[in-house]
């Protein structure tokens, strides 16, 4: 590794170049209406160097005397090749084309003209990513890419969104895609556990484009890591030309998304329920006040926990970048700050990023590039899920008669095991810091006509630190004289890639390209953690603690070594064929199954270039694609194939270990075989463009924990059993409904996408039944719960079905039958974006929709305790119960009667389909109103561009299921887990470039 870096450095010293006789071309680049296009790139064909146009669209480029062709491109315009004639003045007009087939897309190990794609790859443009008030770039995928399910489930800034490309690809191994940033497959996820997503360490403003590789032809070149799709992130690089600066600033507020029906009950409402329950349990109404008193309830207190635990958070983002260069050397330099104070007390997030990218053309044949991205994330976060310290749990569960403060102003610790949530947020902390550095150096060398060698070394480093402190006297720290822990983890991931690329043309009509390469990658994780208690007053570092609690460190590694190859061929740019191959060896798999081969084949047919299509004027493009292949998923633990004793235990001061894992030396990757058929189309001179994809991916050799009888000493082992099938249809359509002839006129465009999703388990060695029923023929997230039969209208008791035909019921929970209840996976979802603009104003709004899934509240039996929790501090009942409970004989409802300390329902174990909800919703996810200063003003201010905007996220949500007390956006697993809902964010911002 070190050797390579050193050599690369040496290479950077070679900057010799060959000079021929030159001439200088100049001119103006304009759009069809004649308006100048600033920032357009003008390069000489077959040459890396070039320039870009200034604010008036003019350029000037020095080219060799014998130069033939210029390539001119600009964002939103079709790339154009211009023949250089005798004239040195060359004006160029570009045609608008933001969706067409002419785009260049980033693909695995290179770039490709979109026209030549045989696979399914979707590019997300920088406009959809930049300036989003969201910490992680993945959050912006939602509703923007067909075939990608992107859900957050948590409003915490910096949390890791769930991304699923074409369904759930695995059961036990990861279903998350591989992330590749500028050619380096990176560590993704939250390395501190406190909401510091490693991908969030990259500012979305530094991203040039994101390509999502969905099928075999597109992704299989990533071999054993391609099964869940690949997200290729390309960061910005400089363009030759005058140095261009851009600056942007945003400020806004966050608020929690709660509907009226989500709001907790007040003291009078809770007491009304309990009073009714008191009578329902056969007690005398007259005795109720005495019970209220005996239980210590002060009915004059009515704490608004939502108000106490949430706030108007705020949000700020500032970015500055500079880019430019000469035809030899270009650079891009940027810095950014992102700051968000969450709408839940005690949580905030700050990120600072910096990026430098350099390219240098040493000679006509040799060029170098280097890039370094630095990121720093800092978060303060509160506990989640079932933790007593979770503020979300607290506002749903804490009784309204409990006080935050005692009359003397001190915190009230008389309830909830001394976990006063306001005090916890103020006095305890969970902090994380995450530092990331992603650097790479590379070189390209043109060996011979069409033959290029590329080499690259990359280093992806993430360092996470967490600090936790519990103050003494209450909450988690109540039995310690203060408790603190500190942990660190260093993720070191390095990679070297060497590629040989070849491109040639036979005769006029045959184009051929090929790639062979070698790649090696190793990821090492070093971590340590320490905890101590009994702190000096007003201190929280471990040096100030008297008593050590725990200490540990760990090192774990994995490696991959691969060879890869790719070929492409086309005839007359009408018929395209591609093939890929990769052989991966991985340290994670059993001794007997260490290497695997992965491949794909693809073909496409550009029907519009056939002569018989020439007369069809309405159809401007039509292309049919098909691909098939095999790739893998190796995302399991590093040592899952080994029989292991785990030594993380101690007994009476002596080291101890016990069996924790069965061995399986044949363990290998999951095999994924995606079949894709796609159709790209364009109508009316590409006013309407779109694509239609059908896919079916069959996954076999799924890595599963095979459940075994506990008498074996463990409850399962990992094996390649089972198979699954994901299939679906993806539609994306872009339409420029109204196109204005002048830049100030009215224009309107619409983007629509829809994804359907069907998952089916096709083989399993034995069914696994928990909250989900995993058996052959069902889908992966099929809920399997005791079948709630509603309420007996005669007596208000809850009923559960005892037979699968749902004819017989019981009022005894333990006799209820478990049954399939529907899936956590949506039937379909997608986005609809409309953009209208006029006179510099642009209004765009995006709707995200999601239909057909079920979501389940594992804490439902606590919120719907039907009085069984009595006056328990955390026994607050939800509003749905209050409004819909059974009251008298004949009431037809699905909420049982309230019974004080009743035993019929409400026990914590009584999880049933009663707490399963329809997950259908439609959300107004993004609304942006922006104004671009007219060119007459900007040019007077010497600016290239100035834009002001207001943007709002999650303004409105329609939810189908009225019973639901939470926000409907949940992780892919479908579980509501007392997480902070996504926030409603409103920001104002300004972008300036000059």
């Amino acid at each position, binding site marked *: 590794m070190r050797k390579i870096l050193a050599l690369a450095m040496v290479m950077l010293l070679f900057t010799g170049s060959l000079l021929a006789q030159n001439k200088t071309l100049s001119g103006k680049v304009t759009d069809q209406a004649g308006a100048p296009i600033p920032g357009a790139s003008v390069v000489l064909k077959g040459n890396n160097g070039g320039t870009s146009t200034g604010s008036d669209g003019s350029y000037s480029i020095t080219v060799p005397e014998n130069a033939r062709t210029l390539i001119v491109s600009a964002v939103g315009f079709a790339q154009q090749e211009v023949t250089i004639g005798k004239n040195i003045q060359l004006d160029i007009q570009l045609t608008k084309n933001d969706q067409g087939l002419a785009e260049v897309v980033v693909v695995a190990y290179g770039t490709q003209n979109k026209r030549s794609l045989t696979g399914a790859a979707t590019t997300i443009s920088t406009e959809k990513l930049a300036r989003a008030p969201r910490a992680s770039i993945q959050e912006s995928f939602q509703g923007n890419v067909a075939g990608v399910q992107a859900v957050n489930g948590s409003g915490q800034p910096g949390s890791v969104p769930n991304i699923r490309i074409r369904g759930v690809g695995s059961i036990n191994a990861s279903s998350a895609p591989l992330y590749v940033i500028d050619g380096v497959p990176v560590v993704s996820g939250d390395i501190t556990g406190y909401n510091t997503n490693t991908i969030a360490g990259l500012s979305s403003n530094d991203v040039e484009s994101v390509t999502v590789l969905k099928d075999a032809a597109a992704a299989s070149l990533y071999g054993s890591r391609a099964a869940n799709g690949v997200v290729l992130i390309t960061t910005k690089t400089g363009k030759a030309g005058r140095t261009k600066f851009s600056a942007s600033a945003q400020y806004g507020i966050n608020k929690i998304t709660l509907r009226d029906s989500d709001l907790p009950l007040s003291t009078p409402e809770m007491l009304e329920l309990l009073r009714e329950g008191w009578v329902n349990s056969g007690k005398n109404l007259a005795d109720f006040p005495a019970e209220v008193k005996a*239980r210590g309830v002060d009915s004059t207190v009515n704490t608004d926990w939502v108000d106490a635990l949430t706030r108007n958070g705020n949000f700020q983002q500032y970015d500055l970048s500079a880019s430019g260069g000469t035809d030899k050397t270009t650079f891009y330099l940027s810095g950014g700050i992102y700051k968000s104070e969450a709408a839940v007390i005690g949580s905030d997030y700050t990120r600072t990023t910096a990026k430098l990218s350099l390219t240098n053309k040493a000679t006509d044949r040799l060029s170098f590039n280097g890039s370094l991205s630095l990121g720093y994330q800092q978060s303060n976060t509160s506990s989640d899920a079932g933790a007593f310290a979770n503020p979300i749990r607290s506002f749903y569960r804490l009784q309204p008669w409990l006080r935050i403060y005692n009359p003397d102003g001190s915190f009230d610790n008389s309830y909830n095991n001394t976990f006063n949530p306001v005090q916890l947020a103020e006095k305890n902390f969970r902090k994380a810091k995450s530092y990331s550095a992603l650097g790479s150096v590379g070189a390209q060398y043109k060996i011979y006509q069409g033959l290029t060698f590329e080499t690259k070394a990359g280093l992806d480093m993430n360092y996470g630190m967490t600090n936790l402190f519990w103050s003494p006297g209450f909450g*988690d720290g109540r*039995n310690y004289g203060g408790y603190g822990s500190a942990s660190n983890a260093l993720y070191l991931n390095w990679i070297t*890639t060497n590629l040989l690329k070849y491109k040639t043309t036979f005769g006029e009509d045959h184009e051929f390209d090929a790639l062979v390469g070698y790649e090696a990658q190793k990821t090492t994780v070093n971590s340590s953690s320490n905890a101590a208690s009994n702190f000096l007053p007003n201190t929280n570092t471990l040096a100030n603690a008297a008593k050590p609690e725990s200490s540990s460190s760990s090192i774990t590694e994995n490696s991959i*070594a691969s060879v890869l190859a790719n070929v492409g061929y086309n005839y007359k740019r009408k018929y395209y064929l591609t093939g890929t191959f990769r052989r991966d060896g991985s340290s994670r798999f059993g001794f007997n199954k260490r290497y695997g081969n992965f491949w794909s084949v693809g073909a496409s047919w550009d029907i519009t270039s056939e002569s018989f299509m020439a007369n069809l004027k309405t159809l401007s493009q039509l292309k049919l694609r098909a691909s098939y292949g095999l790739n893998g998923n190796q995302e399991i633990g590093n040592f899952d194939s080994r029989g292991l004793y785990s030594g993380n235990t101690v007994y009476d001061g002596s080291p*101890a270990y016990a069996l924790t*894992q069965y061995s399986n030396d044949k363990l290998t990757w999951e095999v994924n075989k995606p079949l894709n058929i796609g159709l790209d189309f364009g109508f009316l001179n590409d006013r309407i463009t779109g694509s239609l994809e059908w896919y079916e991916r069959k996954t076999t050799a799924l890595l599963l924990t095979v459940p075994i*009888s506990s008498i074996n000493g463990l409850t399962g082992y990992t094996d390649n059993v089972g198979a699954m099938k994901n299939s679906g249809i993806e539609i994306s359509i872009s339409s420029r409904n109204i196109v204005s002839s002048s830049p100030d006129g009215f224009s309107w465009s619409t983007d629509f996408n829809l994804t359907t999703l069907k998952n089916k388990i096709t083989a399993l060695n*034995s069914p696994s039944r928990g909250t989900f029923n995993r058996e052959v023929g069902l889908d992966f997230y099929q809920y399997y719960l005791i079948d709630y039969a509603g309420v007996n209208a005669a007596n208000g008791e809850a009923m559960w079905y005892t037979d699968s035909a749902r004819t017989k019921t019981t009022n005894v929970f333990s006799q209820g039958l478990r049954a399939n209840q529907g899936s956590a996976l949506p039937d379909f979802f997608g986005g609809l974006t409309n953009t209208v603009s006029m006179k510099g104003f642009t209004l765009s709004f995006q709707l995200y929709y999601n239909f057909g899934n079920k979501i389940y509240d594992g804490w439902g039996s606590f919120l719907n305790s039907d009085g069984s929790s009595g006056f328990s501090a955390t026994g607050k009942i939800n509003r749905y119960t209050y409004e819909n409970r059974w009251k008298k004989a004949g009431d037809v409802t699905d909420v049982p009667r309230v019974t004080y300390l009743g035993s019929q329902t409400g026990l914590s174990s009584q999880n049933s389909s009663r707490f399963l909800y329809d997950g259908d919703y439609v959300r107004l996810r993004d609304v942006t109103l922006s104004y671009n200063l007219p060119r007459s003003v900007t040019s007077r201010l010497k600016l290239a561009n100035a834009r002001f905007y207001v943007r709002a996220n999650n303004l409105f949500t329609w939810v189908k299921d009225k019973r639901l007390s939470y926000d409907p956006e949940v992780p892919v697993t479908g579980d509501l887990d007392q997480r902070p809902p996504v926030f409603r964010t409103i920001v104002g911002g300004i972008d300036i470039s000059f």
Partner: protein
Amino acid sequence: MKRVKYSIYILAAIVLAGTACKKSFLEIDPQQNTDVAQTVTDVPSTRAAVNGIYALLQSANSYGRTASLIPDLMSDNLQISVINANRYQPQDQYAMAANDGMATNLWNNLYQVVANANLVIEKGEPLEVPVADTAEKRKLVGQAYALRAFGYFSLVRFFAQPYNFSAGATHLGVPITLKTATDKSGVVALGRNSVKENYDQIIKDLDSAVSKLNTDTAATSTSSKTRFNYFGGLALLSRVYLYKEDYAKAIDAANKVIDRKKYTLLPGATLVADFRKQSNAETIFEVAFTATDNNSTDALGYFYAQGGYGDAIATDTMYKIYTAADARRGFITRSRRTGTGGENPANIVNKYNNITTYEENLKVLRLAEVYLNRAEAYAYSNQDNLARADLNVITTRGDAAATVPGTLAGDDLKAAILVERRKEFAFEGHRLFDLTRRKQTFTKTRRGTITFIVNAPENKTILPIPQREMDANPAIKGQQNPGYGN
């Protein structure tokens, strides 16, 4: 041009550097865990494996909390307070379902104990070690036998009806496996053996343990009690025989413990304070918890102590069973349940209550039990005089004035012994089994001081075979305990 050529060499060097790392590049060994092949290969690795079995018992799902707590909670000794964090509610209310989390965790944990003991026994028995290490190896394997017996005995008590439930104890016990694989090819699925077969295996293992640990008789009342020794094996054997109603053998095993006088009863005057001491003079086996190795907020003491969860409180009948002079009443404090609206007064248990350092070993076997085991065995084998004498040792230790009247005999004596066991072993995980094996109908008090009658026999005094096991083990199909579905 020369330069270009030079560059090619450099590029070639880079390629070579990249490809230099060959096959060994993919061979990475775990550093956090130990490959199975390297365990139980010598005395240190066997010692660590035996320690591992004890460490399993430390789990809050086992003898760190659940196994001690629920026999008292599901009997007439304990109830859950109105202020609670929802733990053990189904046990408190006799409302367990087959997927009960506590039952599932207990079952899994105890079979882990069994499986790890199997591995030590299987690899340890034939293991050749240097002469200097043979004595320790023998002791370690002996402990593994005792731990396996303890694991099976715990399983059969919690998951099957008592021995005397059917004639010849032919009713369903728990599956027995004496071999544990470490590779997927060796996985087994077994149906339930009979309770008789379970007891036979337990006794066989304890006999093996006792014979291997017989060099371990140097134990004294002051040595560490955190591992099974010779006397631990015998004390457990006396309880097993008592449950089996093989009184002669119960007496025999108890004699071997009592007669050697290695342990002494704590004096009544300082009982409350001394009981809580680590490895006190009376304990024979206890599960170790140290300041750095404990269950913290999942500790048993945390579940009782009012500064902790404090969710489990003693019933009024429990409190009232003691005379005012009885030292053991000191294990209960009548005071207010912490938290707004808590019981007042509540019977706060403080037998285990260290929630500052959690250095509190959980008692499993102690001398007083051996006395009462023997007293009961004498009483049921018509040796009332001897029974009264043993009973008297315990009653007068608690309350000097509570001498057993010489007239106490027959059924009254048996009843008195049962009451004395309740007093003596309160909150130590005995009561439910003493009630069920003596076929006693009793009144259970649950949260909110609501009472209900538990008959003898009753389906729900034993835990369900976990639903997970029913689903994962085809051989156990149709063998669920009655009252928990199929």
